[in-house]
């Protein structure tokens, strides 16, 4: 087990290196992104541009730049300075992390709270009206683009411009530590909007898994023992049906912690996604690089944790 974990950790490092190299290359070769021109103001003289390039180290070959960057990351956990604001990228990302974690955690709670009962009921009432209704709604929720859903939600329910002003709208984020009530109120709509498609997807997946599991031989064994049907489903069927969901949940959480760009942008939640979005608009390479690396980090770590969790959930994996 220890060897397995060590091997996986090595992979994490290799993957992050690859991700950083690729983003670096893409943005280096991107034609529109001359950071010197962005910083130089409206009427840059060639001398000024050259000066800026030299200050930022942009006049050196790409591999030197990359080497210097990676040295900073590895030795000092230093992600460089934003071209746009000159602030350290690391600090900015860490500043934004609580908002992203808040958004992700709340959305996960919402979508699991919706998906588990809906998936369960759909499977048990297969082809009856409950199932049709739930799966129809799920199809809509999966099909609706999240930014559209967000805009519709704002238009309908936000306090500032909604038809039925019941929820806090965009731009109202307050940190949890400031005011928990305001924090929750401001995130309520983003949670539901972000959770919608996930809830739908998870409900469908759980339904499909459960239907498959319920035709397994060991379910027949439970029935043959005289176990009441309710316990057959909840005690014997549910866990094997949920196990694959754990994998996907881990990955989804990892992805969202890297920033839910669309939802954060629509609701103007000051999270990592919003930060990345702004950085991309401003061709702010260090910030882009930082947010991408950060996102990639969460995804690979989530992947690792999922695999370890799997061994914990399923005894067969442990022995293998």
């Amino acid at each position, binding site marked *: 087990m220890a060897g397995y974990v060590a091997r996986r950790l090595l992979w994490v490092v290799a993957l992050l290196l690859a991700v950083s190299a690729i983003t670096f290359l893409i943005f280096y070769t991107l034609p529109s992104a001359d950071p010197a021109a962005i910083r130089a103001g409206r009427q840059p003289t060639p001398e000024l541009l050259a000066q800026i390039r030299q200050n930022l180290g942009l006049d050196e070959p790409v591999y030197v730049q990359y080497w210097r960057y990676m040295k900073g990351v590895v030795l000092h956990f230093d992600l460089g300075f934003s071209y746009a604001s000159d602030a350290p990228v690391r600090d900015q990302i860490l500043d934004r992390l609580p908002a992203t974690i808040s958004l992700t955690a709340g959305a996960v709670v919402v979508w699991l709270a919706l998906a588990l009962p809906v998936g369960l009921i759909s499977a048990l009432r297969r082809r009856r009206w409950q199932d049709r209704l739930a799966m129809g709604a799920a199809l809509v929720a999966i099909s609706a683009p999240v930014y559209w859903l967000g805009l519709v939600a704002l238009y309908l329910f936000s306090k500032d411009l909604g038809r039925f002003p019941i929820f806090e709208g965009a731009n109202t984020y307050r940190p949890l530590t400031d005011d928990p009530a305001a924090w929750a109120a401001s995130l309520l709509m983003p949670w539901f909007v972000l959770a919608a498609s996930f809830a739908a997807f998870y409900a469908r997946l759980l339904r499909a898994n459960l239907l498959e599991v319920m035709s397994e031989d060991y379910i027949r064994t439970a*029935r043959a023992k*005289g176990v009441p049907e309710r316990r057959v489903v909840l005690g*014997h069927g549910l866990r*094997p049906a949920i196990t694959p969901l754990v994998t996907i949940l881990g990955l989804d959480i990892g992805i969202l912690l890297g920033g839910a760009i669309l939802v954060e942008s629509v609701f103007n939640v000051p999270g990592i996604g919003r930060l990345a979005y702004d950085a991309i608009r401003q061709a702010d390479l260090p910030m882009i690089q930082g947010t991408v690396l950060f996102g990639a980090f969460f995804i690979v770590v989530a992947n690792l944790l999922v695999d370890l969790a799997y061994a914990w959930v399923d005894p067969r994996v442990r022995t293998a």
Partner: protein
Amino acid sequence: MALLEVEGLRVSFPTEDGVLEAVGGVSFSVEAGRVLGIVGESGSGKSVTALSVMGLARGAQVSGQARLDGRDLLTLAPDEMRRVRGRDVAMVFQDPLSSLHPLHRVGRQVAEAVRVHQDVTRAAARARAVELLGEVGIPEPARRVDAWPHELSGGMRQRVMIAMALANEPRLLIADEPTTALDVTVQAQILELLERLRAERGMGVVLITHDLGVVAQVADDVAVMYAGQIVERAPAATLFAAPEHPYTWGLLRSVPRLDAPRERELVPIQGRPPSLLHPPGGCRFHPRCPHVRERHRHVEPPLEPVAGDPRHSVACLLDAPTRRELRQGPVA
């Protein structure tokens, strides 16, 4: 009164291509302390028969009667039937690996069978599980009680299944191909175990198998099924000594025997079992029967006692002297 009396059991499944009649009116009975072997090819309806008696044939339309001590199981409400399952009638399945829950320890699975029907504490159920595991011949039961199914061998897994089935001292045990997934030496051990348990507890046993060797070893009575019907029924000794149905002859001829001369060839039964969506008219075996007569294609043979032996019945339209003549030679 027999322990289990099945009468006119019909089981059909509605499918997109029409109604599939898996079991077309079978009748048999099982006495307490005796083993009834139900033999037939895959698709002959033997498993569906068993599952229907258990109320576990999902999506099936079941008619007829299956009386356990005179009480018709087929008319019981679902919750009443649930109380019968695992308590009065227990079942052991073919593939013990897929039949055990992969994420539950074996002791828990056995203990659950105890707790479903008996009001005992968790600790008492566990102790009983250890005891049961010991009874079915699992070494070190106190340790194995915490094993996962995948950690046990096939034979041990089947013993766990049997322990589970015995948890509530059922009067009837239905074993559906209990040895098919196991290798030969383990097969013998499992059959010996079933035989011992039957003798000790006086359980009635229904043993479903396609293997005549298994039947010869443990069954007291045999019912031969073909295409959803019983074509011959007799005490085991009679069936092997004086089989009456051409299908039974075919089955016996297609079994390899160690004591037969080497040059004796195995004779397969020609053709395939018929589709149960469109079963052949008349005698269902007629398309494969080497002794078919024109009349057999239209007239359905009833299951009738053989002259001179009320315990031996056969569903064949050939008359008795002809059968006796045809039986000479290859089988004997």
